[in-house]
């Protein structure tokens, strides 16, 4: 069995989804951690320092390319698999559906949740990453004041609402994705399943509350 065969079988494709998903899960932790610097309540000094480190360090910028690669792999593979799986169903659907009796709605809706997150991601990059990097000349130039940018964006209730919806989509996507990734990699058994589910839930709640509180903190002026 050669490598291309290994990764293109129905199990192999899932392994790619799981590995890229776990990488993105790790990224979210870093992202939330850095953003939490806004709660230093120092007018964004620490936050901008963290942002400067991420934007002006060569290693970080190389990792950033890796992050985009994993995002693209996860998105493209996810869409391809959803379309392929849809084509495997019978030509007719059931008159009476199984619905929630067998599985959770969010487990069956990973593709649509993923697309919602993608839409959010595009808006999100448009708000912060693109203006910042273009100001830098895409390399290691001068960055914009990201703290000020956040303050501005999150003074608009529409964006606060949109970010909240994006994070809710992320919450449900992760509710399935976290434990599904471990199952796909064969790491789930009776001994580990409780640990995986508990850690997944704690991770998910912490990450999502942290992300939701960021726009809200600015909107209500808790962070100045």
């Amino acid at each position, binding site marked *: *069995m*050669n490598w291309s065969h*290994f990764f293109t*079988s*129905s*199990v*192999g*494709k*899932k*392994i790619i989804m799981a590995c890229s998903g776990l990488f993105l899960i790790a990224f979210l932790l870093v992202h939330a951690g850095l953003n939490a610097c806004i709660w230093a309540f120092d007018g964004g000094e620490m936050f901008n320092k963290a942002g400067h480190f991420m934007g002006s360090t060569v290693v970080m910028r190389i990792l950033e390319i890796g992050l985009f690669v994993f995002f693209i792999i996860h998105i493209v593979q996810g869409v391809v*698999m959803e379309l*392929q*799986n*849809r*084509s*495997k*169903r*019978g*030509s*007719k*659907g*059931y*008159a*009476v*559906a*199984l*619905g929630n*009796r*067998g*599985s*959770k709605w969010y*487990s*069956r809706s*990973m593709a649509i949740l993923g697309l919602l997150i993608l839409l959010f991601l595009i808006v999100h990059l448009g708000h912060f990453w693109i203006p910042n990097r273009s100001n830098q000349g895409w390399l290691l130039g001068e960055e914009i004041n990201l703290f000020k940018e956040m303050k501005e964006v999150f003074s608009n209730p529409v964006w606060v609402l949109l970010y909240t919806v994006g994070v809710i989509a992320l919450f449900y996507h992760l509710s*399935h994705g976290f*434990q*599904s990734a*471990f*199952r*796909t*990699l*064969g*790491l*789930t*058994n*009776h001994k580990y*399943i409780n640990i995986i589910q508990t850690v997944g839930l704690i991770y998910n709640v912490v990450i999502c509350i942290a992300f939701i509180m960021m726009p809200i903190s600015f909107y209500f002026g808790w962070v100045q």
Partner: protein
Amino acid sequence: MEHYNMNLTLKVWKQKNSQSAGSFETYQIKEVSSEMSFLEMFDVLNEQLIHEGKEPIAFDHDCREGICGTCSMYINGRPHGPWHGTTTCQLHMRAFKDGDTIVVEPWRAKAFPVIKDLMVDRSAFDRIIQAGGYISVNTGVTIDGNAIPINRENADKSFAAAACIGCGACVAACKNSSAMLFLSAKVSHLALLPQGEIERKRRALDMVAQVDKEGFGSCTNTGACEAVCPKEIEITNIARLNREYLAAGLAADK
């Protein structure tokens, strides 16, 4: 348990052959005993149709004791009907009450084309078994059954996986028409025993390849299969299958 009779409305999928479109037919059936099995109710209905000069409904059945995996009906939105861990043939009419409408459909999956009415072609499962669901044994004198020591836990897990009767309910319930619960049961059954060790690596890779060839979807771990399996095969078997596949694929030297 109290016995009662009921009048029912049945909406059954009728389809002449794999090429035709098919549609639902509505049938009225009277005085159905609560002690009948679901298939006996269909026998009565078919008798009634024959007497009326109509064509009876084609459905798969064989042992009628829940172990052959032949019966396959999607009843009121659930493979094998409303009872948990029960095949269609072991479903009894006391699950329903007077005046109920029961919708009966065939398994829906591209890899399981409808042959006629409620019968689907499940030979894809046979070809998956042929691809690797076997073990090597020496010819000659029969070996004593207890000659190979097997630890109790593995024997139990293997037996639980071997309970899979290959009915296809997992595929029918899956939004991706994935056969992973079936495949994982077959792979686990042999991978857990010393007898299965010889073909272990090849088995995982070859059977996955055959599943893909037959046109089943990939598993997205929704758990619908586990919820409807009449033999209560656990989804942890799918994690074991993935483990087997990873180990075999990474260890293969070509």
